[in-house]
Each structure stands twice: as C-alpha cells, then as structure tokens.
C-alpha cells in the first residue's frame, strides 16, 4: 500500500506550485522557468498555467476520492486511522458520502466539476484573446463560487463525524484556489494586464 502522506504530497505540490504561479511570489519562479518555457515570462500565461495545474490536481484528487469510496464499499481499508485524519471514516459513511439530491458520490461530483473547469482553463489558455475568454473565466468563477457552500456542507459533515478526509480537503482547497484564480484573471482583464506583453508587475496593491 502506497503511503497516504506521500500521495497527499503529490497533490499539495501542484496545488502549491499553481497557487504560487498565480501570485506575486510566482513572478520570480516564472522568470526561472521561462528558461525552459519562454511563455511563462508573461503574467497571464503564468497565471493560466498555475490555474491549469490546480484544476488538474483537483480533478485527479476527485478521481482518487471516488476510488477510495469504491474500495471502501468493497470492504477494503484504504486510509483508516484512529486519528482525526481518516478518509475511510468520512468516505465510508453512508449517511454523508453521497449528495443529498441525486445520491451521487461526492468524488464523482468533484470529477464532473473539475472536468468542466479543466475545459474552461484549457480553452482560455489556448485562446486567451478569444471573444468568449472573459465570459468563460466568469463561468469558472461562478462555478467555483457555487462550490463554496457545498464545501461548507461537507466540512459540517466532517465536524459531525469528528473526522477529516485529507484528500477531500485537498479538493476543497483546489476549488478555493481556482476561485481565487478566476477572480484574479478577471481583475487582470479589468486592469488591462490580460496580454502577452512582458509585464511582470501586476498591480497587487489594489
């Protein structure tokens, strides 16, 4: 069995790196990486690359949680523990592990949501100046905004169970980072920084 902490790290790294690339702190990193990938010297390319990384990590972690749910239903133990961090206890709890409307596993909902976000971020990355790009970024913002009350509901479940599913938390963090990413992309458009000029300095003071 693969160490669950190592797997967790595999999600923390891309989400952390993606977040970094979308913030001021990522400018230096973008400069360093631009030796290998010249496009990363542009602020919006760097931003969209970071957003794509986070969305991809969110999608993969959603697949992982669904896989854990399925494995638990087979009777297996994947990440049970006596500590507060026990995804088996959370994902294996029949009272909370599906959505209350359609009865779908939360992992499946995460897959669909991050799949849709992936379509948005990939499309905008390829054609950032398209007429629909800004509209798509807004859709992404609204989608991740809808995710906020859902995350609150899932956290309330974890509080009720007194257990935390670390992989689910990664998906929640990915959604929140994506919300920031879409909001920040909107701001860049507003501020006229949505171009491939070698503008390194996003106005972070506003």
């Amino acid at each position, binding site marked *: 069995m693969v160490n669950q902490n190592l797997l967790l790290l595999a999600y923390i790294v891309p989400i952390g790196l993606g977040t970094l690339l979308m913030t001021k702190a990522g400018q230096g990193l973008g400069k360093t990486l631009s030796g290998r990938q010249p496009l990363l010297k542009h602020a919006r390319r760097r931003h969209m690359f970071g957003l794509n990384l986070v969305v991809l990590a969110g999608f993969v972690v959603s697949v992982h949680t669904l896989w854990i749910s399925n494995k638990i239903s087979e009777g*297996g133990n994947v990440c049970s523990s006596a500590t507060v961090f026990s995804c088996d206890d959370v994902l294996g709890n029949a009272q909370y592990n599906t959505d209350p409307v359609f009865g779908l596993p939360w992992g499946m909902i995460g897959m669909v949501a991050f*799949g849709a976000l992936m*379509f948005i971020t990939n499309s905008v990355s390829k054609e950032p100046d398209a007429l629909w790009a800004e509209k798509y970024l807004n859709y992404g913002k609204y989608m991740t905004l809808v995710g906020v009350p859902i995350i609150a509901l899932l956290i309330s479940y974890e509080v009720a169970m007194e257990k935390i599913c670390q992989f689910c938390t990664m998906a929640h963090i990915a959604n929140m980072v994506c919300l920031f990413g879409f909001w920040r992309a909107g701001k860049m458009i507003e501020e006229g920084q949505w171009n491939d000029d070698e503008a390194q300095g996003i106005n972070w003071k506003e």
Partner: protein
Amino acid sequence: MKTNTEADVRTDTGIKVMALFFVAIIFLALTTDPIKTGTKEGDRAPMLEGKAYNGSSWYEFDMSDYLTQNWTAGDAEGQWLVVEFMDTDCPFCVRSADDVGYDAEYFMKLRPSHATNPGMGPWDGPVVNFIASATELDIPGHETSRDEIEAFRDKSGDEVCADSACAERAGQSHRFVYIDDIDQDNMKEWKVPGTPAYFLIQPDGIVAWTSTENSQETVFEAIMRITPEA
C-alpha cells in the same frame, strides 16, 4: 477566406477533457468493484460505531472484528452477524428480548438446543454472532442510559425498561454485546424506521436479510433459510 479558429480550440479541448474523464472512469471501472453502502439486502452494511458493553465493561466497538473480508458464498467457516436495533423502553423490544436471547444462545453455539424449538439438534451451521444497538427513540418516557442498557442486558439493577423493572423482563440475561447508540448515530446511518429491527449480515459485511423487507419471517427462520449448512 475567413475562418473562425476559436471554435476549433474549444472542440479540441472539449474532446481532450472528455477523453481524460473517460480514462478516469475506465480506470475506476477496472480497478474497483463498488457495492452500494446501505441497509437493503445486497448492500454493504455501514460500520456500527460506539462504545459496547460485553457484560463486564464498556469498550470501543469495531464491527470489522466480526467480519471476514475474503469470505466466499457457501463457506460455512465465516461467522455471520445479526444486528438488532432496539430501545430498552420499547415494549416490543422488551417482549422479544427472550426470543432474541434464545436465538443468540443457539446460533452463537453457546447452547446445544433451542429453548423454544426443542426438536432442533445442535446448530451445525456457521456461528451467527448477535449484536444489539441500543438507541433512545424520540418518544416521551423512552429516556435511557448506559446503566439501563446494562440492566436490560444483564437483567439486573433497579432500572426501569418500558414501565417495568429491567431485571424482570422475559428470558435470560443476554451474552452478546450491546452498543451504546443513545445518540441514534447508528440508527440514522442504518436508516432504521423503528425498533426492534433486525439485520442478518453475511461474513463479508453484505446485508443478507432485513426484518423490514421480510416482515413475515422471523430471525430464526431467516438464519435457517439463508446460512449455509456445514
């Protein structure tokens, strides 16, 4: 000639994202064989949780101790499980306590004969363990406590169960485990509509029979019909 290439980007991306999605679905389909968790026949029973009383002390209950994950149908070696959801102040539960006790003694192979079915020889089927999950229904007068659960199980003490002394309920003291479900956590997770409710669980944790789906059949009859003979 004017062409709009923007649509191509979205189509191309859409196809790639869908391909990735289906790769993920295929991966899940090939590596997992999910069974719905629930309390209908064929579902995987949710894990019971809480402190359990075994006649001497309260300890952390772990339902997986009672299960055999690699059990295969027909294997008489695996131990089955009967879960009873009850309330110490529910008159029906008090009245059926003697029958539950007799069944438990017989199918857990603690006694060679069945008290109410004297014609039956020693049980030659698999061991069927019994567990009671004692809850507190939201009905006035049904207030319970761990002391009352102990009194109900052991037929001891001065506690009152359904308007009469727990110590005087019908049947003998029980020799199976009682779980404290006063907060109704297990009852809600198992979607138990009322008490008493019985579930027969296969050794691999799959629900084989429920009293709510088979109201005409007793636990005794269900065990006789469903469990494999040695």
